[in-house]
């Protein structure tokens, strides 16, 4: 027996359903690899369960709030349970798209121009009187409006004209207390998955996403047939190399480990722009990271084994 792994899934996030699918699939893969699996829906008795069951490590298959924002990571640090994926700081940095973008700019990682507005800026400081300044601030329409902290493109809207801005901001602000307005980059949508860290770091081939509706929104993410995927992406080797290099820099700049997925767009000139980095990427049958692994000749089980081994090794070395 290789050890007992608590697979954390579900929880109260809006991405609960996707997380349950990821968690089930990860559990199967771990069992097949010979681990004892404790599949846990994250509820109010999580801490008690972890204390009594004393798993050797936790596999975080949670998506969205509490699972990707540092909450569960802080808790597991406190309880002394080694866990998969980026640590507290990397999770918290990546989870807030606005903070992550500031970091990208600092590290010369290309990211579309943006501004961030909070609900309090509207309620307390009259930010709604400055909507007319937004187009110039980000380089004109179209723009993407999205909640600063939310996954699966929930609350994401494309806005082509000034009279749609207020609606889109209000929608984004129903998912989070801050909204990001970002220059819309027209081009090839790519997801680049990165596994490992340091010496073991490996960048998987970019997966290209072609959404039927024009962009890869929540509906396209969960409805079969609303998006097409190409793995590896249909881009030049040079462009693919560049995208992979940038994904690696994002992974390292945020301090990620084990696994991350960097979402980018290649504009018409072939220039990549980083949109965000996901620290607990989807692991379902229709998720991007497993597609990338497949394109790289790795099985799903290979990926899961690598990730859990890294967490177990950290536990043994006490780091």
């Amino acid at each position: 027996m290789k050890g007992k792994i608590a697979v954390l899934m579900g929880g109260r996030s809006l991405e609960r359903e996707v997380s349950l699918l990821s968690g089930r699939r990860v559990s199967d893969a771990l069992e097949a690899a010979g681990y004892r699996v404790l599949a846990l829906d994250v509820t109010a008795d999580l801490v008690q369960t972890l204390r009594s069951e004393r798993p050797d490590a936790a596999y975080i298959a949670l998506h969205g709030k509490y699972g990707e924002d540092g909450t569960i990571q802080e808790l597991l640090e406190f309880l002394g349970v080694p866990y998969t994926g980026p640590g507290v700081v990397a999770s918290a940095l990546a989870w807030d798209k606005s903070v992550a973008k500031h970091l990208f700019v600092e590290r010369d990682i290309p990211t579309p121009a943006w501004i961030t507005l909070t609900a309090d800026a509207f309620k307390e400081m009259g930010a709604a009187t400055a909507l007319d300044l937004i187009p110039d601030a980000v380089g004109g329409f179209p723009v993407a409006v999205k909640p600063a902290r939310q996954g699966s493109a929930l609350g994401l809207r494309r806005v082509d004209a000034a009279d749609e801005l207020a609606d889109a901001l209000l929608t984004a602000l129903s998912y989070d207390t801050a909204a990001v307005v970002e220059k819309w980059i027209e081009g090839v949508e790519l997801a680049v998955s990165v596994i490992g860290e340091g010496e073991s770091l490996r960048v998987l081939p970019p997966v290209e996403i072609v959404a039927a509706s024009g962009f890869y929104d929540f509906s396209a993410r969960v409805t079969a047939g609303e998006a097409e995927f190409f793995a590896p992406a249909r881009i030049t080797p040079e462009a693919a190399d560049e995208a992979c290099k940038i994904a690696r820099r994002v992974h390292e700049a945020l301090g990620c480990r084990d696994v991350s997925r960097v979402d980018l767009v290649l504009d018409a000139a072939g220039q990549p722009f980083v949109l965000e980095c996901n620290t607990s990427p989807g692991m379902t049958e229709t998720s991007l990271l497993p597609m990338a692994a497949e394109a790289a000749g790795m099985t799903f089980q290979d990926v899961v084994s690598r990730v859990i081994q890294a967490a177990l090794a950290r536990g043994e070395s006490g780091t």
Partner: protein
Amino acid sequence: MRPPGARGTKIGGTAIAPSPYQAEGVLCFPGKGLHMGTARIVFDRWHDRYARRLDGVRSSAVRDLFAAASRPDMISLSGGMPEVSRVPHDAVAHAARDAVRHEGAAALQYGSSNGRLQIRTLISELMAEIGVRLSPDDVLVTAGAQQALDLFAKTMLDPGDVVITEGPTYVGALQAFSAYEPDIHCIPMDGDGMRMDLLEAELARLGPRGAKFIYTIPNFQNPAGVTMSPERRRRLLELARAYDVLVVEDDPYGRLRFDGGHMKPLRSLDDEVVYLGTFSKIFAPGLRLGWITAPAPVLAKVLLVKQAADLCGSNFAQATAERYFQGTRWRRVLAELTRTYAERRDAMVAALEEHFPPEARWTKPDGGFFVWVELPLYVDCSSMLAEAVEHGVTFVPGDGFFPDGRGKNCMRLAFCYAEPEAIGEGILRLAEVVEDRLELYRAFAAAGALPAREEGAA
């Protein structure tokens, strides 16, 4: 960006089975000693093969997600589910056992397409109690009234045909109709139901026989909770006669009246009215039993369509229902259920009065399952759903009850399924969400930054 022969980078080998993906049109490029390819990954290989008429029929992925979002203390004010726990399970068990014991050969066999004579007789007796005289031959038993909606629409509608409904209206009717691609025109309501002046204007615009039918839920309308007044009922039938248009009366909630006197169904005033009834609210939806009655030639056509759809309904369910409705116990159960719903309505209306902001208006239904809340026009209720789910309460945003995107500023609240205390707590949670959102909206409104919207009133 996509020169022919473009290829991906960093390939460690070839894909190993088993794979969940169905790769299509795999393009293989000879690489430096290894095989590389770009596979088009397809999860639904048949996505381009579906009938075009289904393009407009889809559920909202985000709403499905919120519906599924569960936490232990989630209070659902969204689903219109009857409180079947109040239906005595022992009585149903007896009815089902007797159905098999005494009529096993029939209950387990195919039946006649229009339904068993015994249940059609029972239905004609139930209809007599609300003032409609029918022969069992005038009744066609369906799998809930929902199947009757589909069969009737399939019988009547060609693409582009005009159907007139109340606005808002039952989302299941919109779904059933939309598969046949009609042009649905909504007539606003007020406290007395569908506005007859607006209906008349619409009928005049369309001309005689301009619409295929007028669909109405006169009692405790879903979702608006309003009841059509006797004057409006008479006027509706006059107008339908004058413009020679069929009227379809959907009456699932008619017997769940809390206050006020008995309202005569449209069908009791006019034999030409198509009437849809159901056992779902007076017994249980799990048996899937409903019925349709229509002028004889129309019913004969619907019967043909029914045969193609499912040959016949469930004899077992019908025989069980026949036995459940023997004697008088079901009447006491129904009276008790109605009292339960009335208490819950009271709890919801009281909580709304206590907690909801002054900008909100809502209906006070005399029966049925639903309260309809209207907020200022600039509010988009679907944008409150995420926050509401976070707060542990769900509701249905109003635009789903319109075919044209109106109703965004409205929400449907179901009081049928939660206990009164839970309803009070749910409304309190929702009020906090609404107040928080309104604060944001007010900030946008004060800056003149809100786009104008068309009214979706009830």
